[in-house]
Structure formats: structure tokens, C-alpha cells
């Protein structure tokens, strides 16, 4: 993946640069079942419609950490994981079942120590922001 000619360097990035966006497949009930098992987050609100309804929700909804994993993919498709120093997000809105999530990001600041600050976001097919976050990467 990280062939030399594709290496992102501190000198090569500019404030305003966009990271290559990544669109994920629609989130199905199967997606949530598999993520529950793989992530160890068995909270029934994400996989059991009876529980979700009893909690006052119309249906199950996606794990916030599934979308955060998608945001992580955005970062590690752009730079090697070892470059990532900090990664954070707010879970702004619930991600409904069947949502198609696209992750985007852009460079907002270049700092000393070859650090680059990013704003990152996960939004659904209607453009509604679900996760709004930040990351700090250290580039060669």
C-alpha cells in the first residue's frame, strides 16, 4: 500500500487539502450483527429491535464506534497508521439502519514538529453529519 511515490509528506500537504473520501456500503442489520460480534459491543440497542423499541427508539441504529472505525480507515488509507498521533470524534447524530456513510477530511493546520491537524467527518447519503472529529498526524 505505502509505495514510496504515494507517501504523503509534510512538505507535500497544504492547508485545505482534502483526503480521498471513502464511501462505505449501506449499513444493514447484518453489518450491525457482524460489528457487534467483532467489536465486542453487544449492546442490544444496536442488534435487537425489541430492546430498541422498549428504549423508545423506532429501530436499531448503528454503533457509534462502527462509524469511528470508518473514519479510522479514512486516515489509514491516507497515511500509515503509525503517523496518527491523536484521533477524536463527537457522535453528533444517530446513524439509522440502511445509511450509506461517506467519510471525508481536510487539512486545517500545519504545525511545528511535522504535525498536521485534520478535520474529519462521517455523513450519510443525505449529507447529514453523524460524526465530526479531528486528528493529528505526524508526517515525514
Amino acid at each position, binding site marked *: *500500500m505505502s509505495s514510496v511515490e504515494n507517501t504523503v509528506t509534510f512538505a507535500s500537504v497544504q492547508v485545505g487539502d482534502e483526503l480521498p473520501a471513502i464511501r462505505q456500503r449501506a449499513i444493514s442489520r447484518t453489518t450491525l450483527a*457482524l460489528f457487534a460480534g467483532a467489536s465486542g459491543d453487544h449492546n442490544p*440497542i444496536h442488534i435487537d429491535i425489541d430492546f430498541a423499541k422498549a428504549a423508545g427508539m423506532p429501530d436499531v441504529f448503528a454503533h457509534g464506534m462502527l462509524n469511528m472505525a470508518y473514519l479510522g480507515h479514512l486516515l489509514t488509507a491516507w497515511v500509515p497508521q503509525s503517523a496518527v498521533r*491523536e484521533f*477524536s470524534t463527537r457522535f453528533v447524530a444517530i446513524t439509522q439502519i440502511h445509511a450509506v456513510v461517506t467519510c471525508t477530511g481536510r487539512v486545517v493546520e500545519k504545525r511545528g514538529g511535522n504535525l498536521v491537524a485534520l478535520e474529519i467527518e462521517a455523513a450519510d447519503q443525505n449529507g447529514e453529519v453523524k460524526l465530526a472529529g479531528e486528528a493529528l498526524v505526524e508526517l515525514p
Partner: protein
Amino acid sequence: MIDRSFIGRSFPSLTTGVEAGRLRAFARATGQRNPIYWDSAAAQAAGYRDIPAPLTFVFTLDLERDDPFYFINEMKIELAHVLHGEQSFTYGVPICAGDEVTLISKVVDIYDKKGGAMEFVILETSAQNQLGEDLGSMTRTIVVRNPK
């Protein structure tokens, strides 16, 4: 109301192994497209000892407990009223398949808004590997919606 005396309190540590199969399942479940996250040979070719744990995986490791909702239950919070508000990570040495990770979680703060209708718990978790190296930390904010 959540008992504010939990502020500053640590929970028992957890030591758990990072399994390659679990990392492969996580990669599949999250639509991962980069083979270093499921193939040891690809990971080693990219300079890792073995398959690296992805950026959010410490969160998953902390769920490897007899009671994954340990702090929620210990604080007598109703799980159905809990939302994940914020999540952050800082990174030290990479975590790879085969590592043994020790996690220690501590309640950093508990506060409320809207006259107690919403309460917030901030839990910080630090991680070390089997060599005592710092793997970084994570901080989660959970939101508890208290019914009127």
C-alpha cells in the same frame, strides 16, 4: 443521579490478548480495504511485527471483560438510557496481533446539564503492552438521558 463519589475512581485492570482472528473479523465487519489489517505477510511487508490493531481497537479490547458494561453497571446507570457522546484516542507504540494489553480505566468527571435531565460520564483508559510500553490512551464520554 449518578453517585459523584465515583469521580477519580479506578476500576480493576484488564489484561487481554490481541488475537489475529479477532482483528480479521474486525476488518471484515468494518469494510476494511487494506490487507495489512487481515494478512500477517502484508503487515510484515509494511513494517509491522504482525497484523496491527486498527485505530479504535483499544475500545474493543476493553470490552473483553466478564461484564463489558462494567462501569455503567457499577455506577447503576440504565444501559437503555446511555448514548456514546464523544470518543478520543492518543497513540504510543503500535499494538499488534500477539500482544498482551493491560487496560486501566478511571472516572475523570461526572456532570449534568439541563437540570439533571442529561448526565455525562468521562472515562479515561490507559493501555500498556507486555513489555510495559505505553500504547496510548482513550477517553470516552457517555451521555445518560434521565427520564423526566
